[in-house]
Each structure stands twice: as C-alpha cells, then as structure tokens.
C-alpha cells in the first residue's frame, strides 16, 4: 500500500467490506481504503460518491488500519442508493474535509447528538477515551424512539466496561428518559460546576437550542458544534455553496466545527441555510 494524503482528489474507490442496520433507516458501513492514508480527526467528513447517482457529505464514525466506518441515514435518492449497496460493492470517497473538534484537557466533555449527528460523536468518543479520564466523558443521545437511537449497543458496552456516562432520552419514552436530551444536559450543568465543553452534532435547530442553553452556564467554557447538516458541493472551499453569513466562512473548509466565539458571529446559525441554487431558506 502506498502512503499518501487523500485530501482533495477525485473520488478514491473503496470496497464495502461490512454493512449492518444500525437503527431504523440508518446503516453502518465499513469501507476498505485502497491506500494507506492519514487518520481522519473527529468532526471531519468525507464526500461519499455513489457512482452514477449522487455525492454528499457523510460523517466519519471510525477509522482504523485502512478501514473507515461511516453511518448513512435514509433521506433521499442518494442515501437510499447507498443503503441498497451490498458487501463487495464499490463507492467513492473524497476527503477528509474540514476542521475537527479540538477538545482541551481536564474538562468535562459533554457530547450531545441527535440522529445521524451521532456519527462524528462516535469517533470523538473513541478519541477522548484515549486521552481523558472516563469519568469526564458524558454522552447525551436523543431520538424520537428507541429504534432511532444510533450506536446504542456500542455506547452501552462502553458504559459497562469503562466508566463513561451515557444519558439516553427518547421523545416517546420508549428508552431512557422521556423528553429531549437537553433536559439531562441542563441537569448536569446545574449540578456540576467544574469547567465543561459541549460538543454537538445533528439537526441545526437542535444545536441552536443547546447553544442557547450552554450560554446560560458560566461553567461551559466552550461549545463546538458541527454545521455539516447543510448542502455541500465541492467540499474544499471553492464553490461557496455552503457559505454562512455574514462571515463568509465555508462550512466545508472553515468548519464544519465552529466554536462558541465563531457561532456567536454566524447569524445564519440555526436560522438560514443555502440550497442547491444558492438561495437562502429558513431552517
């Protein structure tokens, strides 16, 4: 295998070597990378090419020894085409794109995600437990119901084996706490006054709620959120399809992870995004 940097190339063709149903309408895939490349950092993304169909941004859940794990939720033609793929089929990837999460040391790490937003948070969890005490890592996952929770088994096994804190909630109460994951998050922030950093990924409206909540607590020293739930075209900062106003920052290159100071300046955050035409729409 040739060692290289995959960043910013034509799609690199990878074989699907594993596929499983992670939860309702959401599948996990493991792709074999044809060349040895630098590790992806938590929060970075790839552009996944389904030959002849579509290409779109996908979060990275894991990367190890020449294999990459991704999660794909059924949302349209492109994602359905991926879900129809089987072991042995080929797809293309471009990346790794974007700026990663930057966790500081010796703080409480509060990871909060909804839906497919859990994908980058899985990689962040794996990375955090390598350099931080388990007790400092808290994961708050929310979904509509139990069959929509991603990485449930993986996270529960982590909780049993180590001492990671896993807070689950569902809107319908079919698993964990009944309600939004923000309820547990707020409870934690009220009861624990040591410095904390919030990491969030998922639907942008949810993240805006988390952001507004986090701002109320002085013990939250930073918030890092992924704005990757937007239309992304080139992935490397050329087309401006994913630009946020009024800063002119590109989600794909200047983001997708933005910190508190940056999020404060992005008036589009939680409010507006650009569509394929470039027109703005309300989120």
């Amino acid at each position, binding site marked *: 295998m040739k060692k290289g940097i995959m960043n910013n190339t034509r799609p690199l063709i990878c074989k699907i070597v594993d596929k499983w149903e992670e939860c309702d309408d959401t599948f996990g895939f493991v792709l074999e990378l044809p060349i040895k490349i630098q590790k992806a950092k938590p929060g970075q993304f790839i552009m996944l*090419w389904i030959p002849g169909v579509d290409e779109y941004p996908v979060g990275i859940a894991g990367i190890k020894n020449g294999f990459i794990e991704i999660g794909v939720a059924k949302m349209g033609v*492109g994602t359905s085409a991926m879900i129809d793929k089987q072991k042995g089929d080929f797809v*293309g990837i471009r990346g790794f794109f974007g700026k990663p999460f930057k966790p500081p040391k010796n703080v409480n790490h509060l990871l909060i995600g909804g839906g497919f937003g859990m994908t980058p948070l899985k990689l962040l969890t794996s990375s955090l437990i390598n350099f931080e005490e388990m007790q400092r890592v808290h994961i708050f996952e929310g979904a509509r119901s139990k069959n929509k929770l991603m990485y449930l088994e993986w996270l529960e096994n982590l909780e049993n084996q180590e001492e990671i804190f896993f807070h689950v909630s569902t809107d319908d109460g079919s698993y964990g706490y009944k309600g939004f994951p923000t309820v547990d998050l707020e409870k934690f922030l009220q009861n624990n006054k040591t410095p904390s950093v919030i990491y969030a990924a998922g639907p942008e409206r949810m993240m805006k709620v988390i952001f507004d909540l986090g701002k109320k607590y002085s013990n939250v020293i930073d918030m890092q959120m992924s704005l990757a739930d937007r239309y992304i*075209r080139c992935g490397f900062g050329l*087309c401006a399809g994913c*630009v946020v106003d009024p*800063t002119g920052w590109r989600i794909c290159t200047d983001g997708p992870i933005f910190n508190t100071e940056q999020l404060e300046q992005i008036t589009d955050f939680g409010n507006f995004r650009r569509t*394929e035409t*470039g027109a703005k729409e309300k989120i």
Partner: protein
Amino acid sequence: MSLETNLGDIKLKNPLILASGILGASYSSLQRMYDAGMGAVVTKSIGKNPRSGSPNPTIFALVEIKSIVSSVGLANPGYKTFKEDLVKLTEKQTPAIVSIFGETKEDIGEIIEGLNDLPLLAFELNLGYSKENPKTVQEKVGIIKQITNKPLWVKLTPDECNVIKIAEAAVNCGCNALVAINKVKAMVIDIKTKQPVLGAKKGGISGSVLKPIGVRCVYDLYEHFGDKIPIIGVGGISKGEDVIEYLLAGASAVQIGSAVGVAYPENMVRFIQMGIRKYLREQNIENLDEIIGGAFK
C-alpha cells in the same frame, strides 16, 4: 511601485479579480475575498430563473495536474433573489461585477434591467454554456448595451474555434473588455466503476492545466486588437509569476479561481501579490503599464 491597473474607465487597486463561479454565491464570501486583497470580485453566473444545477459530484480536484474538473450546471438562485446579496455587497462599495448568462437575448435583457439600478462595476457576459456564433453574440451584447451604460465584459471560451470572430462581434457591438478564458471541455471516467465521475458526466477543466491555453488566447487577442480593448486573463493563475505572464501576453488584469480553493484563501491572495511585487522590484518596474503586452516588444 503601484499595482493599480485600468480597464477602460475602470481603475482597480490591483489586477487581481475573483473569477466567476468561485466563492461567488453569497455576498459574504465575495466580501471576504475583496477584504482579502482582490482588486474586484465577479459573482457566480446568474440567470433569469433559479436553477439547481447538476447532480453531485459537480467539482473535484485532479491533484496530479493541479486542476479542477467541474460541471455545476449554472446553479444559481435567479437574479431576483440574488439581488438581495448584491444590495448587501454594493452597500459596502465593494467593486462587484455580476456574471450573467441567458439562452436568449430577451432573458439577458430582463436580467440587466432587473439589476441595472445597483452600483455595480460592470456586467460580465458568460458565453461558455450555449452554442454561440458571432451573430448570437452580437444580439446579446447589443441588447445589453441598449439597456445599460455600465461597462460590459465578455468572457470567451476557448472551445470555440473562432474565438477572434466571437471577440470581434462583441467588440464591434460595444463590449468594454474581453475576458479569456473560460473552462475547457473535459471529463473524467472512473475505470473501476466504469462511470463518468461528474454527475453531469461531461464538464470542464480549470486550474494549472489551463494556463498555457489562456496565455495563448490572450496573446492572440492582444495581437489582433492591440490597445483597442482591455483584456482580462484567466486560467491557471496560482502565483505572482503567472499574473506577470498574462500581463506580458497583453492582459491588463487577471481573474483568479481554482487557486483560492484552499484552507486560507487570504494567504493565497497575499502570496500572489507578493510574487508580483517581487518581480516588479527585481525588474525595476514602477507600474504595470510598463509590462502589459511586453511579450510583443
């Protein structure tokens, strides 16, 4: 030493212009590139109606030749919606050029009328996407000049075998500058999956591979028109030396596109400017006029 340059009546603080289609979909990214040090910025090509463009992949890099293959398919929000971005951009006195395209002269006339009240630096007519001949170009340039007093730049595509004839038609109808060149037709097929990579299958190429083609086209145009019309060189510029080469071929300014698709586009603009200044210093040149068309002397 001055980097100022003139394009007819237009004076730019430096010869670097952000090319159409690059970071040009939002007022904020255009403003960012002007603040980074561009002399002016061109928007992405705007049409009469909103268009979603081609399915992805629409843009990817060929690293081995430092070039970009693309077919965005003229995705744009339509001039009525885009006007909101243009209002915000021009409020700050940013020198902005709006790139426009249209199948018919009527469509083009409607767009120009709709945007004519804005304090724009110029319009740029994108000829790269429909089959043009001197007659269609004459019609399109003619209707624009009837409606607006603003300068009109015409962007030429090297895919046409009669570039000079197209340029002549544009110049005869009153266009104020020629922009050369647009992307060159290109495509990439993945041999493992046997599929064209672009969603639209066929597209164009920009980036380093274009530079010698662009320089040749600018040289041909300058040879033909001389000082009669300003020329803006585009294609494969990623350092100061590339800008100098285009100026020597006869360009009065240049546009930069693919090179700003990097993590820190601000640094790229500074790097290109540094390269120009270094050359001017070494050659004892005070202003750019001294080298425009210098390859003919």
